[in-house]
């Protein structure tokens, strides 16, 4: 009852400072905002606020700061870790209306954009100048650049061109106290601490990003892709290391296992070898001479590494066909089972074969199929676990299997997330990746920006208390994983 009164009072306060079209509070208006791309987690916020201008963002933050109301930022809501999951005692701050490309500076090869601009829209706008924005998450037609910065998103071409953090130079942010700050600059470096790097990937916990200046690159004159088939997955995994060791940095190097190959081929008729245990798609780009040289070199290496068949896309149409299968892989796998769960761990490249074996064993143990299609070149796995949410307990088992896979990644020297972020989803696995001193250091950083803990609380960085509880759930052979953490 109390919370209803609070909610009504707070909505009234919002309506006093904002035009009514900027505040959603009726149940049917809130429903579309209950979750992000990870729909297994849902919550209804007190209100969704859709500001039109920077002043309104400041006003809202100031009000929330005074009233001690948590704020969750939302871009396009395509996040896969529950980062933009609302809190029922807070507001969801949507940046959707900040959708303007403010400036394209062809001389300095940069674009200044608002946070709600879609990733692909930047490359489209830059295209007439022969330029593009390099990071290309598969969700690029929908996801926002603000969300990309908050997650440090990657894509197929990150192996050569880097992640979001390598492709932005300046951010405007507003802190929870309503203060505006510029991080980075129009230059290649800035005085003071590298707050641009710190803000990138901070999942909406440190500030609201209100403007981004991205780097634009000249579009490469040429790009060629080859497809190499393998009789077993481990050999394909090893071939990835061989390619990199040979001194080539491919623009993309993706691995698909047999289940992924078949699903993609059924879905978009990509012309994949349906009986291969695995394929590697290896793309090289640059000027025509580089491309010709590297293509030859990559072909020789792949052959020597055990590829049984190699085909090089003859023209642009065939190149796009090869990629179509990879790009449609997730929806294609989606047709194999009622539901699938996408994981996102990373490992050192030389562990690809090992991790795939371990995933296979875990898949058998849990009786759930796992399909693998991933950014092999940078060791970023995306195991897709097939399940049926209508079967009692199957989602829980899926989540547990996912958690086990991530723990294997950490054990092999990798990380629990390469590009999708921790959000709500991997909050427990953070306790596996970091010890209590490290987590305490993270909290201290958060405190420096947001001492009241009002920006996206409960996400990305677990409390020690939470880790203690999680640890207690995972007592193996009587050993506590975090014996040094206080238990409450």
């Amino acid at each position: 009852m109390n919370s209803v009164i609070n909610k009504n009072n707070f909505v009234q306060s919002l309506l006093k400072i904002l035009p009514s079209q900027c505040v959603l509070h009726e149940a049917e208006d809130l429903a579309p905002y209950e979750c992000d791309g990870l729909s297994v987690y849902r919550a209804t916020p007190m209100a969704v606020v859709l500001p039109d201008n920077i002043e309104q963002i400041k006003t809202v933050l100031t009000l929330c700061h005074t009233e001690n109301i948590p704020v969750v930022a939302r871009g396009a809501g395509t996040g896969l870790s529950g980062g933009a999951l609302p809190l029922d005692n807070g507001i969801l701050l949507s940046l959707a209306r900040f959708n303007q490309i403010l400036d394209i500076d062809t001389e300095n090869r940069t674009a200044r954009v608002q946070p709600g601009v879609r990733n692909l829209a930047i490359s489209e706008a830059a295209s007439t100048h022969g330029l593009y924005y390099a990071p290309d998450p598969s969700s690029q037609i929908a996801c926002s650049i603000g969300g990309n910065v908050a997650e440090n998103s990657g894509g197929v071409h990150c192996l050569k061109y880097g992640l979001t953090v390598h492709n932005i130079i300046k951010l405007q942010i507003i802190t929870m106290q309503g203060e505006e700050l510029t991080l980075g600059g129009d230059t290649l470096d800035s005085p003071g601490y590298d707050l641009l790097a710190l803000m990138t990937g901070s999942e909406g916990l440190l500030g609201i990003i209100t403007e981004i200046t991205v780097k634009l690159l000249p579009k490469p004159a040429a790009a060629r892709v080859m497809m190499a088939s393998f009789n077993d997955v481990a050999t394909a995994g090893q071939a990835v290391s061989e390619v990199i060791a040979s001194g080539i940095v491919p623009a993309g190097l993706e691995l698909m296992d047999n289940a992924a190959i078949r699903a993609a081929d059924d879905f978009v008729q990509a012309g994949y070898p349906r009986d291969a245990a695995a394929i590697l798609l290896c793309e090289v780009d640059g000027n025509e001479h580089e491309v010709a040289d590297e293509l030859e070199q990559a072909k020789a290496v792949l052959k020597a590494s055990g590829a049984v068949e190699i085909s090089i896309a003859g023209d642009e149409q065939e190149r796009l066909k090869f990629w179509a299968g990879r790009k449609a892989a997730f929806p294609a796998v989606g047709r194999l089972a009622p539901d699938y769960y996408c994981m996102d761990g990373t490992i050192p490249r030389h562990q690809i074969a090992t991790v795939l074996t371990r995933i296979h064993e875990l898949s058998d143990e849990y009786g759930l199929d796992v399909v693998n299609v991933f950014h092999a070149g940078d060791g970023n796995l995306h195991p897709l676990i097939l399940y049926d949410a209508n079967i009692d307990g199957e989602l829980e088992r899926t989540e547990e299997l996912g958690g086990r896979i991530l723990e294997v990644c950490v054990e092999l020297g990798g990380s629990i997330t390469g590009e999708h972020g921790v959000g709500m989803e991997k909050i427990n696995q953070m306790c596996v990746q970091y010890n209590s001193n490290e987590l305490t250091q993270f909290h201290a950083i958060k405190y420096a920006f947001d001492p009241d803990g009002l920006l996206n609380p409960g996400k990305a960085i677990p409390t020690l208390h939470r880790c203690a509880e999680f640890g207690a759930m995972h007592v193996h052979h009587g050993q506590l994983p975090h014996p040094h953490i206080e238990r409450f």
Partner: protein
Amino acid sequence: MTSAADISTTLADQVKTAFSCRQPLRINAGNSKAFYGNTIEGDVLNVNAHRGIIEYQPSELVITARSGTPLNEIETALAENNQMLAFEPPLHTEHATFGGAIATGLSGPRRAFTGAARDFVLGTTVINGKGEILSFGGQVMKNVAGYDVSRLMAGAQGTLGVLLDISVKVLPLAEKEITLVFEFDQQTAHDQLRQWILQGHAVSASCFTNNILSVRLSSTESSVNHSISELGGEITDNNIWIQLRHQTHPFFTDNTRLWRLSVPPATEPVLQDHNQLIEWGGALRWIAGEDAIYEQAAALNGHATRYALHTNSDSDPFQPLGPTMLKLHRQLKQAFDPELILNRGRTYSSL
């Protein structure tokens, strides 16, 4: 050469003791970049003995080494496998260390084309101001678990933590690397360079001074040969990049009082009455002279650093930070180093 040794716990104990008695510490390794920051007080915390390559598998494109490892040792190991630190850390003396390179975050001629020190940092193990040993990031290319503390350490000059172990991404050496020189005025040099980059020529460094434009090209054999035939100019050896990187080029030996001006690359010619050398496709301009140029830098959307090689500075050399920014910097410093004992005042006197 001193042998490899892991002295992490000894160093952490020293910091712990300093923390409990609030004793400021001055982190010292090769001492090759003492000029790049304020002279500071404090007991010396010597990380020199913390050295050695911990892990290096060329196929991973990653090297992990202790902070006191001489840069020379790292670059030799990489060169044996046709790889390099692509940010070309500048200012080697034989004493310069890996930790010093990352702590100052400085980058050499290749920076504008392949990235800065911070771009290549993947993971660090550090001692914070309480004497705790903490690890962030890792040896993998992608890791978004937790805040990116490792990149934050690059350029923080030890004010947030003592670097112990660092993992950086490395890149393969190009098959062929050559230098072309041209005689141009500044505007023509800028326009030409820009056009070549747009055309896809594999430019990996640029330098303009005294109406001479030098351009380095790094790529496959046939790609570089193609550029040579297209661009013209005169081929010379690649020495100039070593001289620029380590600042032994005559411009740096003739002008010891310098300003390092960082501006948007397309910024028109500025401060024309000063002797200058321009790198990074226009983004980095070395300006000879004594008088502060902070205001001019700010007006150009850039920033300036007083850069007096081989002399210790006596006041904050870096572009002043605005009040809100400085406040946030102080809070962040507190977060890592609550007693303000690590390299206090090295970058800004209040940090």
